[in-house]
């Protein structure tokens, strides 16, 4: 088999569309699965609520906080898992602290959003010098994705009225989506092969005309259409896979693919 080829067709900050050639299906699918569930990111894991006079109960707010994507670039080296760390509970190496302290003083309804979450230094930080992990973190590491960026809508946590208050401390930890979906960097991964169904893995159900009822997708242009009366090659295997990866911003699209490449090569070779 030839060397694998990865051809990026479209690239945006949080989205990448690429074609992977000369790999077998198991490889391509494990790539997909790893992107979805095995890439470490950081997410809010423990919430200490100091004051909550909003209409939403504590655990509901905590659940919403956990789902907020946080900047996790370089997470695999910039952060330790708490379970691997030699600290007692959590420390600057294995956690980040976010605080939120909002009170509404106006008579209009106020939105509490991810923009209100602030990274604060660990209490024990500074006592010992910054470890190698901290050095590898980028500036925004651990803060909500797109915070205070123009054109990015912040994520709504809850709405408060005059006199209501929300004050809490979040402990951010590293994890993977196998543990909880909040650690997944991908919101969706689309995956396709054999757009012409030459391999006959599937059989299209149709009423009168298969071609008319099953319009070809855009990936069909990448492959040659089967010729009329072409014999069926039952030994053929899929080798060209079309991916479209959309991330939630915690990891950039490029990072996701690069990390996956490393992890998969690590696993398979």
């Amino acid at each position, binding site marked *: 088999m030839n060397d694998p080829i990865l051809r990026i067709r479209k690239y945006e900050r949080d989205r990448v569309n690429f074609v992977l050639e000369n790999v077998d*299906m*198991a490889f*391509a*699918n*494990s790539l*997909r*699965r790893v992107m*979805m*569930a095995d890439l470490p990111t950081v997410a809010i894991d423990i919430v200490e*609520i100091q004051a*909550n006079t909003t209409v939403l*109960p*504590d*655990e*509901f707010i905590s*659940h919403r906080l956990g789902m907020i994507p946080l900047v996790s670039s370089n997470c695999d080296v910039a952060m330790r898992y708490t379970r691997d760390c030699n600290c007692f509970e959590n420390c600057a190496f294995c956690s980040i602290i976010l605080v939120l302290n909002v009170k509404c003083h106006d008579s209009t*309804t106020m939105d509490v959003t991810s923009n209100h979450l602030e990274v604060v230094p660990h209490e024990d930080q500074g006592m010992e010098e910054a470890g190698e992990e901290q050095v590898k973190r980028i500036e925004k590491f651990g803060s909500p994705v797109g915070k205070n960026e123009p054109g990015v809508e912040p994520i709504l946590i809850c709405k408060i009225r005059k006199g209501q208050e929300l004050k809490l401390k979040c402990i951010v930890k590293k994890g993977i*989506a*196998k543990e909880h*979906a909040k650690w*997944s960097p991908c919101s*969706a*991964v*689309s*995956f*396709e*092969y*054999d757009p012409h*169904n030459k391999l006959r*893995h*599937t*059989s*299209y*159900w149709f*009423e009168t005309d298969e071609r008319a*009822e099953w319009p070809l*997708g855009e990936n069909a242009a990448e492959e040659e259409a089967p010729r009329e009366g072409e014999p069926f090659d039952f030994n053929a295997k899929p080798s060209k896979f079309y991916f*479209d990866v*959309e991330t939630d911003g915690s990891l950039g699209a490029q990072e996701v693919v690069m990390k996956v490449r490393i992890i998969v090569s690590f696993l398979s070779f």
Partner: protein
Amino acid sequence: MPDSERSKRQPTFDTLEREKLFKFPPKQGSSYKILNEFVAPHIESFNALFDDSGLPSGDGKGKGLLSLGLDDMGERVIFDGTGQTAGTWGNRMRIWIESVSISRPMVPDKNKYVKDRKVFPAEARERLASYRGKMSIKLCWTDPQGQRQDVTRDCGLVPIMVRSVRCNLRSMSSADMVKHHEEAEEFGGYFVINGNERLIRYLILPRRNHVISLLRPSFTNRGPSYTQYAVQIRCVRPDQTSCTNTLHYLSNGSAMFRFSWRKQEYVIPIMLILKALVGASDKEIFEGIMMQDYDNTFLTGRVELLLRSYKQFTMRTGEQALEYLGDKFRVVLGMADDMSNSAIGALLIRKLILVHIENPREKYRMLLFMLRKLYSVVNGTCCADNPDSPQHQEVLLPGQLYGMIIKERLEEILNSIRTFINIDIRNGNTVDFNDKRYFAKVLTRINFDIGSKLSNFLATGNLVSPSGLDLQQASGFTIVAEKLNWQRYISHFRCIHRGAFFAELKTTTVRKLLPEAWGFLCPVHTPDGSPCGLLNHLARTCRIVTAPLAVAHIPALLAKHGMSEPFNACIDGRTNLCVQLDGHVIGWATPAVARQLATSLRIWKTEGKNEIPMDLEIGMVPPSMGGQYPGLFLFSSRSRMMRPVKYLANGRDDSIGPFEQVYMDIACTPEEIESEVSTHVEHNPTNFLSILANLTPFSDFNQSPRNIYQCQMGKQTMGTPSTALKHRTDNKLYRLQSGQSPVVRPALHNTYAMDAFPNGTNAIVALRKSGEPTLHFGLGPEIKPHAKGEKRDSCLDFLDLDGLPYIGTKLRSGDPIAAYVDDVTRRTKFVKYKGDEEALVDEVRLLGEDTGDVELQKIHITLRITRSPVIGDKFSSRHGQKGVCSQKWPAVDMPFSESGMQPDVIINPHAFPSRMTIGMLVESMAGKAGAMHGLAQDATPFKAVEAAGYNYYGNEPMYSGITGEEFAADIYLGVVYYQRLRHMVLDKFQVRTTGPVDPVTRQPVKGRKRAGGIRFGEMERDALIAHGTSYLLQDRLMNCSDYSTAWDISLGEVFTGTSISRKPTGPGGEYCRICRAAAEQEDELERQALATGQHLQRPQASLSVAISSQNVLGRSLKGGDLDVVAVPYVFRYLCAELASMGIAVSLEIQ
């Protein structure tokens, strides 16, 4: 799609509008007016009790039902029994109740500090109290000089219907309502009793003031010569109390008139009543019944027999008949002693015979009509009416029942005053009518507390009544308005019950769905199971008339247009039809004239001419060969069901009732109109469905029972029960945190504020063969049960210094919820949390006394339990497709489509062929298109489906999440609105290995609450035997049940019985007392035998049971002859029982 087209589309999600209404509830009126309309019969019938009801006065003077009841009740007369010598009765006293008043709920006067004395329903709910207002009556009496005296008596606190004319929320706007901790859409119609919302359910009753013919074989059991034929009329007095009169046909040609008085039945020959009413001569009666139909030999024969039967009574005049009746009923009626017999006779006729008519002459005419109808049924010229048909039914409204109970209680007060005075006279106590203090003393002995009686009635639904109120049941009148979700809640106010009596009937005829019910009772919305067909729901547009109508001018109007007057003596009964208005004979007309009159009336009423009210029901029954008895029957009374349709003759809106609907041709859609045949057309083809049935999307595509199931499941869904959750104190409240507005919705979804109370989630559904139903994150709910406790003072870790828990505290089983100091022992006591699940403290309420003068008598703590979906929870779509979550999969393992879409739910396609819920397929299709385009999809039944995306079947190639391989078949993927039902495994699972056992048998106890087991019975045992799973059998029936061990005498008998010659002992020196004693005895005997040389015989046991060697545990190694054997404890128990009867059980152990 261009924006202009997008904005025109209906329905829309109305997100902004809804949010605006929620943030700023209207300061005038309410957000959703229609919600107030559908409970109107509840509230208006309650309002009708009062003189200031705000209802139109109709023909009357606008008096409330309570005042009318007082008029009907009249006065009681008592004599003090002095001067009995000359046949006089002594001093005469009249007592009566002059007025009744019920006030709005107020803080008691005891409380001196309160600024606003008004009490609002939210307070009653939160304090678990009742929402009640003070009732008082003005009691009047006369002293011997005839001077009127009066006294005002308190009758306790009467529950008040929320949003009625006596409620403090009356006419409040949505904004005010929210200020008073109510729902913005609060519509009332219920009572608050001990914090529960209870309402009086509608009940079906026979149509009032209309004669129906009955054919019941059971009538023949009433006595000799009774036949199966009868006619019946349920007559209603102005105060809405009723009295049913039945006229039985006897095989000798005459008829018996039956009525009941205080649950006792009485029968009077009809001739006696006819004579007593107007003193009619025999000829007059003959002509009145015959109506010139002299050729009808059947009729002449019967009338002759009827007249002849009266000859045994030797009364000629009406006066004599009255006196006779009065004499017979003097004791039964219990009226004043000084009334003459004829006065009592007249009273009997006024109070119990055709009570809807005042005038005796009119009563006489009505009785003749009843006789004619009776003979006609017997003759076969007309058929028997079906009492199960809505044509002959009306509704018992909550307010009317409430009024009847109050009236009867007031009557009881008058009667008991008389009884007490009579007892005093009989006992020789001093009875002085001149002494005010004596009367006051009598009053102290009377129970005036009507309020507690009514509270009790509402809390239990049990009717305690000496007369039975002419109803067929004594319990089951009230129900709790459960706020499980919005659909269930609003359904309570539209449900209508056939009557508890019918629930026990073995026949199913009463449950039948009759075509007459079309448009009035929903054919879909009824529970399955025992109440099926008995508990119905009103169709969406069905109204119940609650206002009295002005119809006094109608007889004159009809007479002007060709109707003959009723007193006209030479009417030919063969060619004339009777014209009746609310059970009064108002005239006669030929069929052609009658038809003309009916048409004119309909045109007048639809066009608002001649002051004919819209709610007049014009029942023109044409002459037929053996059909319904013909006539023109007009109804203007209350409690009738009516519904709007369009009248084709003039294109106006018409309001029709179930009586007249039978003779109409109503087209469902304008396309169905047939010229010369159709008279009306429906405003909307879905109007015949109830609110809930209307909410099932594309229900016209489904197999009908599935729509019935959805009506049930919609009501069991965990949704959004209320928006005033902070102020709810329900025992259990289920709340869905992630409710969504359905993409696919009928137009009515918006009309009934359904989006304000979301009930489910739009789920991506894949149909996949061999796929297990799967759910992953999304449908996460919450429950709130409650706990109650008493409190004073304490301190602890997660309790504050006041002994109350911090809000948000996490509780595990056994943690303290509250602490207080016991006044007696001076020790701190703790109230523990007993649940098994982790709970959070949501709310703490400190409650004072009802009187408002003592504070902090109770604390009330709301707990919150979170429950994300787990395997075993029940879900359903809106098409009666329920199912249990059988597996949860990680996202990566789920199949996905080419676009990366993963289903939330995978259901097996086998769910469709047998259930035929095509509507669900259409919904998922429309949902997919709607989700793709961001549009709400109209799913109104009977509408042409024009949703986008129908050029393509919705199938998509899918890939296995595990291998990445494309599935061999393309898979259908769509969006379906899913409901999570309240039945959750966490409430239902029942497992045990060991646990509590029954003290007698030592077998596991039953019941989930007591950690008991599920019975593993004989049939289950058979199944395991058949499977050959003997180890499991051993485990279930022995090890996990009543395993016990016993000592066994090796190769001998256990427990009882005789022994062999050895003296067995166990390893620890245990021995068998019986054996040892027997052995010693035997030793002794043997020694004697040896001495005497005799041979001895041992007694033999008759029954022997084999115990396999497997069950013999460790044979002792240390020597000794006793072994331990495993025995079910019940067997030991059985042996003991048998031993107590002198039966020895002997066992053979191998």
